[in-house]
């Protein structure tokens, strides 16, 4: 789960990471936390990098100005990403900007420490000799020691700050089941300031699979479900659902991450418009249609949806059982009345054809033929109002 900067900072603060004073301003103008005194900066909260260049970070003299900037920033997408809210933060002057990150190196199964005397820039474009690298096994003491080694190779002015920040970030990395913590920039403050350093920005990616043992993250996902709709759905419903095109015409009831992604790619390459990605995990339904009921309910938000394409290539699932659950779910969400094209392969196929055929659903074994059937449905004049409940 890719945490917004504001939430990342709140989570890191609990591990002693110092951050500039700040608060969250939602798209509705609602405030979370205490508005600091000016001068301020207003930072759009998006799940993507490069927001500074895209105009997502703007100064504001005081609280009134900051709220106005936040209103403007949340009104429109930033570089294609919806802006969930803004973090309004105390502006900090006179700091030196350095870089520090901890990343799970999946190939080595270790934590990679990356540090640089030159923070605040896109680290991917930094000169390789400006970066200092170390590796450590996943335990807080070893990671902190690796940051300490990296710090010794930085300029003397930033060593102490980086080593100290590293100790706290190491504890956070292990404590939060993180995959990445990046502080860019890390402000090293002039002598005489009460703090030696501040995390000016924070990127935090945590592991959805570890949510069950992360009560603080669970509470965040529960409380801010609209900010993290994908993680919240996975946590509550046990499946992955992402709206990939709010104006899409084809709702997808699919299982398996890779096949679902590939289906979206192939549909789009053919000029069709899928509405959602879904890994419903048919293998985990265990005889209960509720997850299908939930999914069909979400699909009603797609105002342009005109056909439902079911694509299940079953490995562990029995298709007859799945077909009965689907029919039960459709009965529970009768308002979702778009035509259904099902492509099924795997054990229990004949039984599934019988169950779904009795309901008038088209069943295909071949995916290309199923896509043709979808195209046919989209081309036929539709007496139903798209996506609207009757």
């Amino acid at each position: 789960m890719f945490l917004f900067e504001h939430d990342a900072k709140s989570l890191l603060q609990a591990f002693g990471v110092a951050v500039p004073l700040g608060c969250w301003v939602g798209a509705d103008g609602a405030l979370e936390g205490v508005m600091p005194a000016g001068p301020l900066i207003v930072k759009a909260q998006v799940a993507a990098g490069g927001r500074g260049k895209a105009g997502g970070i703007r100064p504001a003299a005081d609280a009134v100005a900051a709220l106005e900037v936040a209103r403007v920033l949340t009104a429109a997408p930033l570089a294609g990403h919806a802006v969930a809210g803004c973090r309004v933060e105390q502006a900090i002057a006179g700091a030196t900007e350095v870089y520090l990150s901890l990343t799970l190196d999946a190939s080595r199964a270790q934590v990679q420490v990356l540090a640089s005397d030159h923070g605040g820039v896109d680290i991917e474009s930094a000169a390789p000799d400006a970066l200092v690298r170390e590796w450590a096994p996943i335990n807080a003491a070893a990671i902190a020691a690796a940051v300490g080694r990296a710090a010794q190779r930085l300029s003397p002015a930033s060593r102490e700050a980086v080593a100290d920040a590293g100790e706290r970030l190491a504890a956070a990395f292990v404590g939060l089941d993180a995959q990445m913590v990046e502080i860019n920039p890390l402000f090293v403050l002039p002598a005489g300031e009460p703090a030696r350093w501040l995390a000016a920005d924070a990127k935090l990616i945590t592991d959805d699979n570890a949510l069950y043992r992360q009560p603080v993250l669970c509470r965040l996902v529960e409380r801010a479900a609209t900010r993290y709709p994908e993680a919240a759905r996975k946590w509550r419903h046990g499946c992955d659902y992402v709206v990939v095109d709010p104006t899409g015409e084809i709702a997808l009831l699919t299982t398996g991450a890779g096949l679902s992604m590939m289906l979206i790619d192939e549909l789009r390459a053919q000029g069709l418009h899928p509405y959602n990605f879904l890994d419903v995990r048919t293998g985990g339904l265990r005889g209960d249609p509720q997850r299908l009921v939930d999914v069909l309910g979400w699909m009603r938000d797609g105002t342009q949806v005109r056909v439902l394409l079911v694509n299940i290539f079953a490995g562990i699932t029995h298709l007859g059982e799945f077909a009965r659950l689907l029919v039960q779910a459709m009965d529970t969400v009768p308002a979702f009345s778009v035509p259904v094209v099902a492509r099924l392969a795997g054990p229990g196929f004949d039984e599934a054809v019988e169950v779904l055929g009795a309901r008038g659903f088209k069943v295909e074994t071949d995916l290309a033929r199923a896509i043709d059937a979808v195209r046919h449905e989209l081309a036929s004049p539709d007496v139903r109002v798209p996506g609207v409940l009757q």
Partner: protein
Amino acid sequence: MIPRPPFALSVDRHTPVLVQGITGRAGQRHACMMRDAGTSIVAGVSARADARPVDGIPVFVDCASAVAATGAVASVLLVGAAQVLPAVSEALAAGIRLLVTPTEGVPVHDAVEIRNRVDAAGATWIGASTPGMAIPGEAKLGFLPDVSLAPGPIAMASKSGTLSYEAGFRLVQAGLGQSAWIGVGGDPVKGTRFADLAPWLARHGRTEAILLVGEIGGNEEEDFAQAIATSGLDKPVVAIIAGRTAPGGVSMGHAGALTWGSFGTWEAKRAALADAGVNVCATIDEAVQALARSLGR
């Protein structure tokens, strides 16, 4: 860093395999299905004190007694996500050399620990979040659907279960089967990565061409592209990569399928693979046709 032992896999119909978690719902069903596919399922392990044999397969209280009684060298672990780490440790302690962990949802910090323990033991781990592996006509360790399996010349390596089912199904329909099928799985940290397979694929006699079924996120496809040259792999490689049009910053079903910035993107993978001479195809059908052509069919 613990040095990685080279990927090794010698599985056939005589390899004695045990199933950890055999008395669970998935364990019971799939132990029998694997046996039907030719696998020598010699034992099960269950924490239940009153466990009875599953369809004639003897059930033991722990791996050590199962291995002592049956000589099992490989294990399929059908246990919950939080139990994978302790179950792997138990299997390694009992001397198991090949571990297949289909379980989805293993925390990534657990996966790091598992990999380090497996590497230290010099064993082979396939998973997690995988339908498993198969040598068609010999043995199947996992869930791979039989309609997608047939003996043949193509080695398949895949991050995604269902996408590989579809690809395998169309290979079989086109009259091409598999020399080996290894689901490396959709997690970011895993036992066997695409690149680990390259030296083995280069030497594997029955493999004439390779189908790589990748997806966005991580850097396995990029690492595999590098490993092609270093391992001397000179067989034709065809790839499909799911997620070309997926949004960034969101895990697309698999924990590993997460891009941010330019890292892990479809274009980065396509470019790295194409530079290494891999034929990256936009659709499954194109990939099947390319494989057929590469074999002169």
